[in-house]
């Protein structure tokens, strides 16, 4: 167990902790918003698939000496589009198509990184390293998160309609394909940003946990969205503090906090059901 007072020197706070905190809150916010739509549309696996593709692309980019983020974001957006089309049209079924596509991308990445002997560099992105984010990483994350947030708020009503009943929305003349693509693109951006801090293996749970927790506790869509945001940000903050105190990995601590809150909320919703019955 660490002595928090000893770690938290003014210098540590301003150089390392504060940027991580800002970026983390921004990305947690986006992840929870999009998670609600993904879980309700029953395509939680898209987040996971995209993180595989993202990791594979990162490995290739680093092996070839390219700027990792600038290559990865467009590739993952493209992958989001392809995954969406595959799950719409594929004879294999959505989840199978996603699994095939994303593991293939991952395999390519691992091949590239093993040829170039990159194991240490890329493992950052496997498990995340929020405290090692550079200033430009943080600015980049915050700006993109604000974009995701704005687009989500602006299209909130349409996203609800498309999530609740796609056929009805399409029949009334809404461009459902566009909004699905929008959700996929926002998810892609969030996944790549989240990969830097939480790691490719954990980012999808940052999207899914707050959403399912909020669904246990709410009866209105707006309530679900707001609760998911609150759960996500507060789990991130407590997870971060705990990880400093107990000297554990940040990403894993945040996810375990999410798991804890999910367990408590499930218990609450079961108790409510029992009382009603």
């Amino acid at each position, binding site marked *: 167990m660490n002595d928090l007072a000893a770690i938290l020197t003014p210098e540590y706070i301003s150089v390392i902790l504060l940027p991580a905190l800002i970026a983390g809150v921004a990305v947690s916010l986006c992840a929870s918003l999009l998670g609600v739509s993904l879980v*309700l549309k029953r395509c939680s696996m898209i987040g996971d698939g995209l993180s595989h593709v993202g990791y594979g692309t990162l490995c290739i980019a680093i092996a070839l000496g390219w700027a990792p983020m600038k290559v990865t974001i467009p590739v993952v957006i493209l992958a989001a589009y392809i995954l969406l089309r595959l799950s719409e049209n594929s004879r294999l079924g959505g989840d199978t198509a996603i699994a095939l596509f994303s593991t293939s991308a991952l395999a390519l990445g691992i091949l590239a990184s093993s040829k170039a002997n990159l194991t240490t560099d890329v493992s950052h992105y496997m498990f995340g390293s929020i405290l090692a984010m550079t200033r430009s990483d943080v600015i980049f994350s915050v700006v993109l998160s604000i974009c995701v947030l704005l687009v989500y708020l*602006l*299209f*909130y*009503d*349409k996203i*609800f*309609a498309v*999530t*609740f*009943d796609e*056929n*009805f*929305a*399409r*029949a*009334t*003349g*809404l461009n459902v394909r566009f909004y699905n693509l929008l959700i996929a693109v926002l998810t892609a951006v969030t996944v790549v940003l989240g990969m830097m801090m939480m790691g490719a293996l954990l980012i999808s749970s940052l999207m899914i946990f707050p959403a399912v927790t909020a*669904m246990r506790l*709410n*009866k*209105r*869509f*707006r*309530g*679900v969205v707001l609760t998911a945001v609150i759960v996500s940000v507060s789990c991130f903050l407590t997870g971060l503090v705990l990880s400093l105190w107990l000297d554990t990995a940040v990403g894993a601590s945040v996810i375990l906090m999410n798991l804890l809150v999910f367990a408590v909320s499930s218990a609450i919703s079961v108790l409510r059901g029992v009382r009603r019955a």
Partner: protein
Amino acid sequence: MAYIQCENLTLRYESLVVQQNLSFSVEKGDYLCIVGENGSGKSTLVKCLLGLKQADGGSLTFGDGLKRNEIGYLPQQSMIQRSFPASVREVVLSGCVSRTGLHPFYTKADKARAQEQMECLNITALADRCYRELSGGQQQRVLLARALCATKKLLLLDEPLTGLDPLVSAELYGILRHIHDDHGITVIMVTHDVECAVRHAKSILHIGKNENFFGSCEAYEHSPLGRRFLGDSIAQEQCTHCEQSRHPHIPIRHGGGKGAQA
């Protein structure tokens, strides 16, 4: 010109052709019931009408001031996500979604329209309840209110009675009659219940695997196809749904209506 004119439509379900040369029309003020066996292409026809799917041949034209995106659609219950957390007000309001156009949020007029439809269907008291916790009949009213937010002209209902008990079905027929008669909204309903269909509709479209029928209810009752599906007893008996309800909105109809045999 008719609201909807279908000429020699070919419908395909995956690689199988389920209908060929299907022709019918829907006039303004019509009350058309679409009946037929499973697998005859009813759902595919609905998808084509809504523009969710292209017909494989023939023509489907909209006229008389109706545009394709002005159809209020009530989907099959199974198509709706039952576990979705959303309040009744949120669901009904989503019927206005295409009205907002480039405006990002619902306007006051949209909210007033949603409120009006909730009042019309007597679900104002449920406005803040969770959609998934309502009974089947209440859920159908909510979806009907949503569909009415999306249209002032034509309602398309895809098997709205599946899973409802006779009393609730009768109530729904009553509501539809009210919407049709008093609000002047044209109704197209896909149903399994042929007997109730001829009681309530003005015209019938029966799509079968080998033969089709399109015309008035009276003509349908005397057609070979109609007789086979209705049985001979229908002339004396009332359908179970109508019999069990004493709903004031439901007059018992005996055929009639307009339309010509196709």
